[in-house]
């Protein structure tokens, strides 16, 4: 059976060779598909009141930081589902939800074609507060690249750093964000 998400897998393979444009397309597509999945997962766990956008963001961060664990010869979506499931369970555990969530929750709630969902306009995301926990330079680089859309070279010139260093700081900041989210909020 042909993989219905073959195009996404192609983008991921390109991303793994450093193609930022393909990567952006992939992450956008994944975000659209992860929203309904996370929402259904929360509903099945009886926590539909929780904001799923955080879990979508945590999953995207994990997809990014763990992308070397995807086997390029395999379909992409089962791997994404496994990560989404882990992040969903982890998020519920951190919020004090200790009941066992069946491992099938996400897998059975991600049909082949699920209506993609755009980001809710008023997503009150925790990651926003987290930016405040980065150092000033880290924040400047994350905000510069993510929100203002500047290139590493541009930021490097402004901050007096080599663009390679800017990239390293960006990567470390993203890992730090993932760590801060994982360890939970006070």
């Amino acid at each position: 059976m042909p993989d219905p998400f073959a195009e996404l897998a192609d983008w991921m393979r390109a991303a793994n060779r450093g193609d930022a444009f393909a990567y952006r397309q992939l992450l956008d597509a994944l975000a659209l598909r992860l929203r309904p999945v996370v929402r259904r997962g929360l509903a099945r766990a009886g926590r539909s009141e929780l904001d799923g956008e955080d879990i979508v963001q945590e999953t995207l961060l994990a997809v990014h930081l763990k992308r070397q664990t995807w086997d390029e010869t395999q379909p992409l979506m089962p791997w994404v589902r496994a990560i989404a499931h882990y992040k969903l369970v982890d998020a519920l555990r951190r919020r004090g939800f200790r009941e066992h969530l069946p491992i099938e929750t996400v897998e059975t709630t991600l049909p082949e074609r699920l209506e993609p969902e755009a980001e809710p306009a008023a997503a009150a995301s925790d990651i926003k507060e987290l930016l405040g926990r980065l150092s000033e330079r880290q924040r400047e680089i994350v905000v510069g690249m993510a929100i203002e859309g500047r290139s590493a070279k541009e930021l490097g010139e402004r901050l007096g750093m080599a663009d390679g260093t800017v990239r390293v700081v960006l990567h470390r900041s993203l890992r730090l964000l993932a760590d801060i989210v994982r360890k939970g909020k006070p």
Partner: protein
Amino acid sequence: MKTDELIAALAADAQPVRRSPERTMIGALAAGVAVALVGFLLALGARPDIGQALHTWRFVLKLVIVAMAALLITRECVRLMRPLARPSVWPILAVVGLLVAALIAELLISPSSTWGHKLVGTNAVICLTAIPLLSLAPLASFVIALRSGAPIAPVWTGAMVGLASAALGASLYALHCFDDSPLFVATWYSAAALIMTGIGAILGARLLRW
């Protein structure tokens, strides 16, 4: 931060992926096992009569058991680096099966009057100290490598990592140890492995979440 902005930040960080989880693990383990080997050669060394021992079935069987445990459980730890890998008990069952078969063979072959002596052995305390010590460097390697992986069951994976490092440590220690009876191995080697499995599980809960 909006999801769109997060995606922009992630896309800006699109670097080519350099290493597969397997290669990361092999590199880390090579270093950890090398450290354990140096420690073994400096502190213990192989038993002097190893040439003759290799002609006795008990010594060879002991080596086969620890080497098979090291191989199977290490392979399981590598597998668990990927998020699609579900925990499996088969590698453990295979090792336990071999151990039980060896135990039955020993009980059938040797008179019951020798069992107590074989069980207690001569080196139980050294065994319980040396195996955990020899497994520390491999344990560190496993944990470091697995932190770049994505194990979906961190506590279980930690326990497997503790067991695998104990099996690697035991593979070295077995070359030094004079107690070859399966009665001794099943008791004391297993006790050492159990200690490391517990330590691994605790480390897993703390260090292998992502």
